[in-house]
């Protein structure tokens, strides 16, 4: 480590002296040692998923009835068959696409409104005092309970479903942003003031980045609730959408499609929360992984 400073240098930088170039085998062994924990988790995870499939297969092929009735539950193979069929069915793909679009619009609106509102409420007491009580009263109402009201409020079915999705994700985003703002270290604000920062710069350079980890927690939770709300809304009032598909499958006695719909919902939910986590890493490079 080069150091131009004449002063004594604290022994901080650990020695990173590269030895002679190691062989490929040695590198592979070192890689294995460093990633052992991750590999282990992956292997155990795969085994556990396989075991789940096997148990599911056994329970359904032998139509087990033991408190819970597996008589009508489709086997994994039946679900797989309906999956391959659905993949070539433009209608199924449209269901998926529509749900994704509703999530995208509802969730984006919630983030666009919720994050700035939380930041402003966290910074300005008057706004907090005025808005917080209303938010607290509305927050415990589950988004599903809004369905009749939403149908009355909005001219089209599509809009009311997006509205329900918006409501579901809005409150977690707002509350977490607010929480992040309340935890900003005052010493960082004072440090910024001592360096000549004014109100607006402090907001942009201190409050906002300091709240980002909590904002992303809010976005992750909000995305989960958005899916919950969307599926419920689609089942009740929908035409199209993966929630509607799942409910319709039940009405039409297409049992394999019920499981297919559920799995599709799970995969989409997982994918969207992974997307948010990736965005978080991108936006907050200073955070440890």
């Amino acid at each position, binding site marked *: 480590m080069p*150091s131009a400073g*004449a002063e004594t*240098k604290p022994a901080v930088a650990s020695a990173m002296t590269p030895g002679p170039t190691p062989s490929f085998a040695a590198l592979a062994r070192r890689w294995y040692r460093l990633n052992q924990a991750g590999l282990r988790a992956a292997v155990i995870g795969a085994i556990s998923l396989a075991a789940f499939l096997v148990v599911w297969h056994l329970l359904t092929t032998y139509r087990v009835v033991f408190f819970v009735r597996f008589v009508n539950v489709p086997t994994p193979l039946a679900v797989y068959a309906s999956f391959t069929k659905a993949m070539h069915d433009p209608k199924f793909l449209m269901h998926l696409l529509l749900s994704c679009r509703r999530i995208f619009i509802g969730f984006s609106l919630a983030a666009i409104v919720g994050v700035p509102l939380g930041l402003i409420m966290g910074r300005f007491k008057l706004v907090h005092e005025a808005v917080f009580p209303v938010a607290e009263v509305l927050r415990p109402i589950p988004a599903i309970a809004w369905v009749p009201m939403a149908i009355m409020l909005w001219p089209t079915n599509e809009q009311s479903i997006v509205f329900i999705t918006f409501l579901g994700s809005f409150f977690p985003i707002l509350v977490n942003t607010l929480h992040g703002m309340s935890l900003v270290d005052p*010493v960082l604000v*004072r440090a910024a*003031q*001592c360096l000549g920062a004014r109100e607006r710069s402090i907001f942009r*350079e201190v409050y906002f980045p*300091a709240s980002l980890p909590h904002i992303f927690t809010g976005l992750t939770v909000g995305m989960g609730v958005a899916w919950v709300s969307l599926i419920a809304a689609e089942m009740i009032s929908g035409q199209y959408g993966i929630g509607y598909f799942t409910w319709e499958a039940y009405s039409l006695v297409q049992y394999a499609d019920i499981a297919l719909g559920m799995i599709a919902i799970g995969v989409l939910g997982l994918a969207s929360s992974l997307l948010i986590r990736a965005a978080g890493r991108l936006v907050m490079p200073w955070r*440890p992984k």
Partner: protein
Amino acid sequence: MNEVRTKPPLGRIEVSNFSLSYESIDGAVQAVTDTRIHVDPGEFVSIVGPSGCGKSTLLNAVAGFLKPTTGVVTVDGEPVNGPSAERGMVFQQYSLFPWKTVRENVEFGLKMRGMPRSQRERAARTLLGLAGLEAFEKHYPERLSGGMKQRVGIVRALATGPKVLLLDEPFGALDAQTRVIMQQILTNMWQRLKISVLFVTHDIDEAIFLSDRVYCMTARPGSIKAEIPIPLDARGSSR
């Protein structure tokens, strides 16, 4: 910066008739009472006292975070009202912005002043080089040791070329060995920059080692009990 050099030396801190009290349920509590201190341009002055004696309160008033109940704080004759980049500050708690790299932290004050990016990058690199920190310019603070963080904190406070440097127990959280190193670094920087320094500590040895003059404070209510000039030869031998 050049303009500052041609004027007579700047950075005289004056605190006179100073008292500060705050309201509590039991009435007004006197944190600091009837205090008068000064720091001459280029002088290194410490305030020593037990914890809770009000020395940090006094320093925070000089920084502009607290308003005196009575009396005035002036720097070069101008009353202090609110924090400003004229008075650089180093805190006891690590106060680097975790979302900024070491260099971006050092650049912060210059950015606030509106200096263009390329110019402030160069300035920050130069300063980090002087402090022996150039190898760490791209690191985030989380990866630095405590001593290293405070070193960056000092560089950051000096980057805007303040008239005075205020330090609030900056080495309080460091281990003894790192502390000694940091004291030497601070002395070196001070000698090079000829800046006025007001340093708060509870460690008497530290105060004697660093300072031209030491104020001793007592608690409840906080006030200056003694003012002790430190002869040059006493400093080296204090360790």
